């Protein structure tokens, strides 16, 4: 029997801020959307995140960041994922990220989507489903 496996998502908080409410809300919403969510908790270095994404063989890496260090940490995670051969992972970020930074992160650093406070979780679920289906299909 072949089982159709749920979409696997790693939810991590890179850097030093401990505000994990948003990450937990997202983790819960994705779980309720039928996904397998691996939650790593706070204080993750880019290396830890990439290593966890590799071991868990995830489709999606979700990063929550509210510290203001997003222009340093998010590109670092994205490039490290590529270096580790995990370029197929969809990268979704959330937090307090200004529009101009958001634009640069998406166009220059390979972050697939960025969501701010107040985003409807259905929107995020729909984006992940669509993007993962597209990438799984093209592999």
């Amino acid at each position: 029997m072949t089982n159709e496996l749920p979409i696997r998502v790693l939810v991590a908080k890179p850097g030093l801020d401990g505000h994990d409410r948003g990450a937990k809300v997202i983790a819960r919403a994705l779980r309720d959307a039928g996904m397998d969510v691996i939650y790593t908790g706070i204080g993750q270095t880019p290396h830890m995140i990439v290593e966890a994404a590799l071991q868990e063989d995830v489709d999606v890496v979700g990063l929550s960041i509210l510290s203001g260090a997003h222009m340093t940490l998010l590109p670092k995670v994205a490039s490290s994922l590529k270096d580790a051969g995990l370029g197929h992972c969809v990268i979704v970020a959330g937090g307090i990220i200004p529009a101009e930074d958001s634009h640069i992160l998406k166009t220059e650093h390979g972050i697939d989507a960025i969501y701010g406070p107040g985003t409807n979780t259905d929107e995020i679920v729909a984006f992940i489903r669509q993007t993962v289906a597209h990438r799984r299909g093209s592999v």
Partner: protein
Amino acid sequence: MTHESEQLAQLIRAGDRRALAHALTHIERGGAFARALRRALGVVPGGVLIGITGAPGAGKSSLVTAIAQTLRARNIMVGIIAVDPSSPLTGGSLLGDRIRMYDLAGDAGVFIRSMANRGQYGGLAATTADAALLMRAAGFPVVLLETVGAGQSDVAVAEVADTVLLVEAPGMGDEVQSIKAGLLEVADMIVVSKSDRADAPATLQQLRALVRMHHEDESQWQIPVLPVSVRNNQGIDACVDAMLAHGSWLAAHPQTARRKYQQQLALQRAVGRLVVERMQTQPVWQHAVTALQSHASLDEWAERIVQEFVQSQR
């Protein structure tokens, strides 16, 4: 497919972590490729699968982390399979065991994989046994399997583990005696966690008395009951020693009743999977799925599916 699976097996044996991660996904998905992969891996000698079970909050994740650290200090590579429940409503899951395994991150001698139980302990048992096999093939001789919080179904850990380690938190009182009785039958060692607490000695004494009652035969493995405080870093070395001692005992006594039971069960499941997979390709299967209206006709349909399949093979 044979070529692909052999290539993957080759990479796993060479210790390629990404290949191992992919292979674990294949095993979870099941089907023909998973079988081909199992075949390509063949017999993986040595190694031991330790099932770590206990009630929610008993301290399983913390103990697993401490055991893994101790094994690493002894230069032993460790694989960890951490199982959390799936949602019965959506099929999704929130796998959070990595949070407590923070201190193991960044060590190339550790490989952690989280798994959802998909609501079926039987399926889980089959998958975790194969997952442990993959990890051992990739050079992680000791695999720690952390179960979901213990209920009656957690006895299933004995269906796959070589060593069953039961974690009991102190102060659970008389109410849990019945649970203890069920789990005691499959435990090879018992750890009283949070042993820095004042009520730990009483629990330790109680459990030692219980174990003595259950196991009077001197020729059998003597179940150790050990106090451990992860917080104070006490008793973990002794726990790991006992764990490895049980591994040696098993190597010297390869024909235990449990091993035979496990092998029989594994065979039964493999046959079951294969049979259902083959049956599903028959037109009568789809026919039955649509026609099946009540539970009452279940056996008749099952009979008919098997009969038509057998006839189609003649």
